[in-house]
């Protein structure tokens, strides 16, 4: 079957072709932002073609240049883009092999490719991709019929190739933020304090006193300060902030910062799974877990550039997809998509829908009103924290029934959250424009089986054989701009369910590892969990309540992805100190093992940070935590040694690994803390106050 991404972009030469300079031009529709996707996809392309890695020309992402694969999200590049590029390259190779065979008067099956050259019986034939390029027309539709390389023939897949994007990042300029254009103007937007706010007045004279040369753009509630230097733009912006007054500013209730407060907001309900359990005398336990709003916390505030010239708009962005950016810009500016070109550049890690879509739209709106001028907008740290979408808070109310033997037979997850991808395809600047009407909500996404997709339901029920499960999701009208954050509801749900499984095991009077293995039939999952118990030294686990704890957790992400088990060892006095983390992962074919380890470990550290430290505080006109002092994350001294083991299952389908380690590590920490304290902290983050409260209660 033809991979869906190839079917959507069937022209073979959009993916691969051979250039006169002796290189193979390869294009992907995926954006690199530090996750190593370009390197891994290039490995797949080079391997299927049998072209040396250093003869690839991986095309810079821009509209018109690369296939349209939508957004680079959901850790799906390896799983979905990988098969497309592999199938395209395998087909290209087969077409060239056929051409070589007809030249040589032999059967294509007699030919092999080495370093881009065709061999027959191990001998050079004098033919290679480049010498045959004139004979093979790649301007044709892919059939998806060529067979992919079997694992034993892979030369590059499965090898830890160094990342292609890393070297420039160690020597200076490397990011979109560093791009300069001739005549570049620097602009800042005076943001509405909240989406409903209207500009009552702006004392422009006061702004000009601060920066005489400033160009002040006012269109309804959209206000921009445009200068020659960034420093002047910052000064003008600061002056404008003091010189503006707004009306209709939202007053955010700080109490909404807490997950439990979600229940007080209007919501829509969706039930799925089995009917409610009837009355029975089975043992029933219940617990509620919470996770607050989280910031993506990208290290660099987002930036973007735009220029409008001769009716054409060019946008430079570090967002998650050039085609979605073009669609967004077209909707907001009213230009036809064909009049917009979008060029991608490297940015700080985004981990989902952070602020990256916004400054390019700010810049585009300014550029349309100042034709000819290249405009750069650099968001401040306060903008990124205060106006970028946040990951939604979640409340997870779980209940379970055990039969007489202590077996888990009935499981209910009742989840309260805002839509996980709510702000996708919107920009914060929109509501400031004249005549703004909110775009209609996107159509309901469906799962492959036709059921309703919701980010809040990912990993909602644990990855074991349980007779009866059901979910009830309450989707809340969000009080704050929220959108996708790495794993959507997957990690928080795994945190809750895998902590709850420990509670269930305790109720059943069983060891948490043995209890899990008792419900886990899948042999690959059992291997992962068993191996984890060995490397973390589960057998040495000591009695509860000593102040030191060891906990573990298991999950198969989205019920179909990588199988991952994590363990944590912690020390808890007034705060949680992470001593060690472990992870064992079976992700099928791993294209770049070192890259996979890097992703898994990064996910573990981020999730440790979510678990122990992070909470977006609401208040004022929206978000109250707008600096790193208000939003602490894990630091070097907080990061423990981490051991990761990858199970080699290269004959299995590859899985994305960017969001599989967070949930299990969060739950492992939760379970380790409960083991250390003899009391459970169910509401994140596990701060000093929450620990004290849990100890008082239990």
């Amino acid at each position, binding site marked *: 079957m033809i991979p869906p991404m190839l079917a959507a972009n069937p022209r073979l030469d959009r993916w691969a072709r051979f250039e006169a300079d002796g290189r193979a031009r390869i294009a992907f529709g995926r954006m690199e932002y530090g996750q190593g996707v370009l390197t891994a996809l290039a490995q797949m392309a080079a391997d299927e073609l049998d072209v040396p890695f250093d003869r690839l020309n991986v095309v810079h992402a821009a509209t018109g240049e690369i296939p349209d694969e939508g957004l680079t999200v959901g850790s799906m590049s390896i799983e979905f883009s990988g098969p497309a590029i592999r199938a395209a390259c395998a087909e290209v190779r087969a077409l060239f092999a056929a051409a070589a065979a007809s030249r040589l008067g032999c059967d294509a099956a007699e030919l092999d490719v080495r370093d881009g050259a065709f061999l027959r019986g191990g001998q050079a034939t004098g033919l290679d991709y480049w010498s045959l390029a004139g004979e093979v027309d790649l301007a044709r539709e892919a059939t998806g019929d060529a067979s992919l390389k079997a694992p034993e023939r892979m030369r590059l897949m499965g090898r830890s190739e160094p990342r292609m994007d890393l070297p420039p990042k*160690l020597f200076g300029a490397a990011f979109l933020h560093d791009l300069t254009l001739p005549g570049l103007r620097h602009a800042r937007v005076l943001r509405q304090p909240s989406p409903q706010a209207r500009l009552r007045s702006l004392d422009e004279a006061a702004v000009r006193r601060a920066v005489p040369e400033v160009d002040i753009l006012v269109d309804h509630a959209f206000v921009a300060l445009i200068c020659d230097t960034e420093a002047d733009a*910052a000064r003008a912006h600061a002056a404008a902030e003091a010189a503006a007054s707004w009306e209709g500013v939202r007053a955010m209730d700080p109490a909404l910062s807490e997950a439990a407060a979600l229940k007080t907001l209007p919501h829509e309900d969706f039930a799925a799974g089995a009917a409610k359990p009837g009355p029975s005398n089975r043992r029933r336990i219940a617990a509620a877990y919470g996770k607050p709003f989280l910031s993506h916390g990208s290290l660099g505030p987002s930036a973007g550039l735009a220029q409008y010239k001769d009716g054409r708009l060019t946008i430079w962005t570090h967002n998650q997809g050039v085609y979605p950016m073009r669609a967004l810009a077209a909707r907001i500016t009213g230009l036809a998509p064909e009049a917009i070109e979008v060029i991608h550049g490297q940015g700080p890690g985004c981990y989902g829908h952070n602020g990256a879509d916004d400054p390019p739209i700010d810049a585009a709106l300014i550029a349309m009103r100042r034709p000819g001028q290249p405009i750069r907008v650099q968001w401040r740290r306060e903008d990124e924290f205060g106006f970028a979408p946040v990951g939604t808070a979640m409340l997870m109310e779980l209940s379970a029934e055990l039969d007489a033997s202590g077996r888990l037979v009935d499981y209910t997850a009742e989840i309260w959250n805002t839509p996980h991808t709510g702000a996708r395809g919107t920009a914060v600047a929109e509501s400031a424009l004249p005549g703004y009407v909110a775009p209609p909500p996107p159509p309901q996404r469906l799962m492959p089986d036709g059921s309703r997709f919701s980010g809040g339901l990912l990993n909602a029920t644990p990855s074991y054989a349980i007779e009866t499960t059901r979910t009830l999701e309450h989707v809340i009208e969000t009080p704050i701009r929220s959108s996708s954050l790495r794993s959507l509801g997957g990690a928080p749900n795994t945190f809750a369910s895998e902590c709850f499984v420990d509670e269930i095991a305790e109720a059943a009077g069983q060891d948490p590892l043995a209890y899990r293995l008792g419900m886990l039939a899948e042999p690959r999952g059992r291997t992962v969990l068993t191996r984890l118990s060995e490397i973390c030294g589960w057998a040495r686990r000591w009695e509860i309540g000593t102040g030191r704890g060891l906990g573990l957790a298991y999950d198969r992400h989205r019920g179909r992805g990588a199988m991952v088990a994590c363990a944590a060892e912690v020390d808890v006095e007034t705060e949680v100190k992470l001593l060690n983390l472990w992870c064992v992962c079976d992700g099928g074919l791993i294209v770049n093992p070192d890259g996979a380890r890097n992703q898994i470990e990064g996910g573990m550290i981020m999730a440790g940070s979510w678990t122990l430290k992070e909470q977006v505080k609401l208040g004022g006109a929206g978000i109250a935590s707008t600096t790193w002092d208000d939003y602490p994350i894990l630091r070097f001294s907080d990061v423990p040694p981490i051991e990761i083991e990858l199970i080699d299952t290269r004959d299995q389908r590859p899985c994305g690994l960017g969001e599989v380690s967070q949930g299990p590590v969060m739950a492992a920490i939760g379970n380790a803390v409960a083991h250390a304290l003899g009391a459970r902290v169910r509401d994140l983050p596990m701060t000093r106050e929450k620990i004290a409260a849990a100890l008082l209660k239990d």
Partner: protein
Amino acid sequence: MRQTIQFTLNGLTTSVEAEESDLLLDVLRGQLGLFGARFGCGAGQCGACAVLVDGKVAAACHTEIGALAGKRIVTVEGLGTPEAPHPLQAAFLELQAGQCGYCLSGILIGAKALLDGNPDPTRAEIARALDWHLCRCGVHNRVMDAVALAAARMREGAGA
């Protein structure tokens, strides 16, 4: 009032015309066109803009240019080049210590300051020296390993 301010930048005598209160980060990324020091917070809270001033780590986003007359400033561009990398840069590449890389120039500067004063730091000392620097991608362990590797190489080099 604009004035001429002179200092040493990555070993070269440099002078700029600027307001005394202009921030070093804006001057570096603006008129000097050096983009290694990165904007992360503008408030001294993240370490992305770190540079060395007379050998000490400083937040370029919080340092006024007027205070730098006659000082020696080093940015990540002064450490090494792709052709002749500093041992730290070589070790970061070797261990693939980075994801998005936005934090790395600041971290390299912090690590250089550490190794200048302590050629054989423990893991805890490395962590403490880098604690000001935030990394959101979670490459902390690789970074600490790379700093230790560079330190070992530099000790060997110094002894040879």
